[in-house]
């Protein structure tokens, strides 16, 4: 009778970078040698010893892919890594996106698109009809465009400066597509990006009474639901679940989220 040795899976594990794919001038995807079980919309915590540890969306599981924008101390250090280098990862954490309805409208702002390619692949496999809306300030900040174009889906691009696709906000083609949906009750909007964009999309969805799953960001510390650092207030449109009293004004991105679901 061998005893079960206690599970240490929640601790960080070493991953080795297999390849690096440059998405745009400030964003790269690390493609690992190893895989990690997880769902689109969940996140992981990536640690570089001596540098720091931060949350990133799971952009692919087999092998594990992480798409990282170079915005600060840790992400800058990540951008100096080469194939063969190691990173430390724990997770997955949080609530992922759930498949819902026949039509899926995926909206990504900037590097917010990072979990959406993985989500698109997962939904297409389940037979969902997928449309993708990528928005960015300018052409060079768009990511994953080429990857999306290889999938059987409709793709809309917007840039604020018109350097690629339609000029303007991503909500413009999104509203258009919502209007053209065969049955808005049988569809869902999935969005990931800056807070302002999410609030805009939420309002739009409320207007058309369409389900949406939004992925929120916050500065995370513990990542475990203890410190309260990632607390945000949810939009008015969000119905507080009866088994989570008080959560509307104190929603933990790391634990209740990162995705919220409003039906």
């Amino acid at each position, binding site marked *: 009778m061998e005893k079960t040795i206690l599970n240490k899976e*929640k*601790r960080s594990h070493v991953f080795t970078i297999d390849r690096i794919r440059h998405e745009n001038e400030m964003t790269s995807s690390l493609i690992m040698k190893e895989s990690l079980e997880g769902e689109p919309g969940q996140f992981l915590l990536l640690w570089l010893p001596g540098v720091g540890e931060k949350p990133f969306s799971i952009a692919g599981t087999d092998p594990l892919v992480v798409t990282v924008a170079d915005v600060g101390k840790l992400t800058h250090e990540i951008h100096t890594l080469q194939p063969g280098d190691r990173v430390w990862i724990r997770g997955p954490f949080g609530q992922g996106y759930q498949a819902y309805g026949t039509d899926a409208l995926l909206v990504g702002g900037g590097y917010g698109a990072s979990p959406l390619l993985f989500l698109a692949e997962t939904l297409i496999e389940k037979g969902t009809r997928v449309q993708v809306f990528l928005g960015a300030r300018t052409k060079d900040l768009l990511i994953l465009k080429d990857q999306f174009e290889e999938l059987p889906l409709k793709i809309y691009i917007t840039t604020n400066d018109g350097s690629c696709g339609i000029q303007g906000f991503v909500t413009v083609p999104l509203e258009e597509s919502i209007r053209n949906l065969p049955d808005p009750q049988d569809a869902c909007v999935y969005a990931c990006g800056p807070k302002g964009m999410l609030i805009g999309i939420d309002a739009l969805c409320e207007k058309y009474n369409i389900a949406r799953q939004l992925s929120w960001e916050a500065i995370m510390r513990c990542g*475990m639901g*203890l*410190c*309260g650092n990632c607390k945000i*207030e949810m939009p008015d449109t969000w119905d507080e679940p009866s088994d989570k009293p008080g959560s509307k004004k*104190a929603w933990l991105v790391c634990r209740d989220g990162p995705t919220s679901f409003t039906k």
Partner: protein
Amino acid sequence: MSNFSCKLFDNLILKSPLILASGISGNSDGLLVRAAKSGAAAVTTKGVTLKYQKGAENPVSTDWGPGLITNLGLSNPGIESMAYMIKTFRNEMGDQTIPIFVNIHGESAEEYAEIARLIAPSHPDLLEIDLPFPDETLAREIRHAVIENASGIPISVKISADYPKIGQLAKVIEDAGADAISAINSMKGLIVDAYAAKPFLSSGSGGISGPAIKPIALYCISEIYQAVNIPVIGTGGVLTGLDMAEMMMAGATIVGVGSALYYSGYGAFSQIMNEFETFMKSEGYQSTSELVGKIWR
């Protein structure tokens, strides 16, 4: 639900023995409200220092298997903002307000005196003194410093297991005039990542909490219970209603949970209370006070 009310002091009665321990969600009135609405009978704030503290860099915590380790570097908004938070908490709770305990942390008796002076006007229902390290003389000095500046507010001194004669320490604290003892704080620990050849937390060491420390907490609580006549606020690894019953049987009058919010979310409160109720019924206990210290009776 049955009546599980618990008398901590003559003028402090809780609706149940289950409270939110210090440090978990305790930097936000919104989260304290959430804990209260989820079933906590009292909430405790994060340890507050005189001034705002930013805290440590990530990583600040991890699940290492049998328990957690955390070192947030005592990040907190400082005592003045905390006073404001208490007010907001009570406003938001309105009629349904529950006691709010304020955990305070300083490095010297003088600092504690100043913290107590600044928080006293907010009338927290209890001041919980987080001893910076277990030392009988220091405990006495701090207790005196606090009592002078926050008279009328009950005081509990929180101690940890890294003391060889914890019952004796508790007795000294009781003799110095404390109204309760809180035990235990997290244990000092270190997680090493052998591949990185580094400690995992940015601060090196951290506090161990969760299931791993439960028997250590039970031991300390039972030693303290046997040494003193004031109530014990028990914390350390409580995840279930049965864990709570064990703590009370070892000597805790009320029981705090921290790490349980990682393992079960805010649902921890109702889950633990349901399990506790099942236990009380199946074993035929009428009131929570029957349990307290029962293994020694």
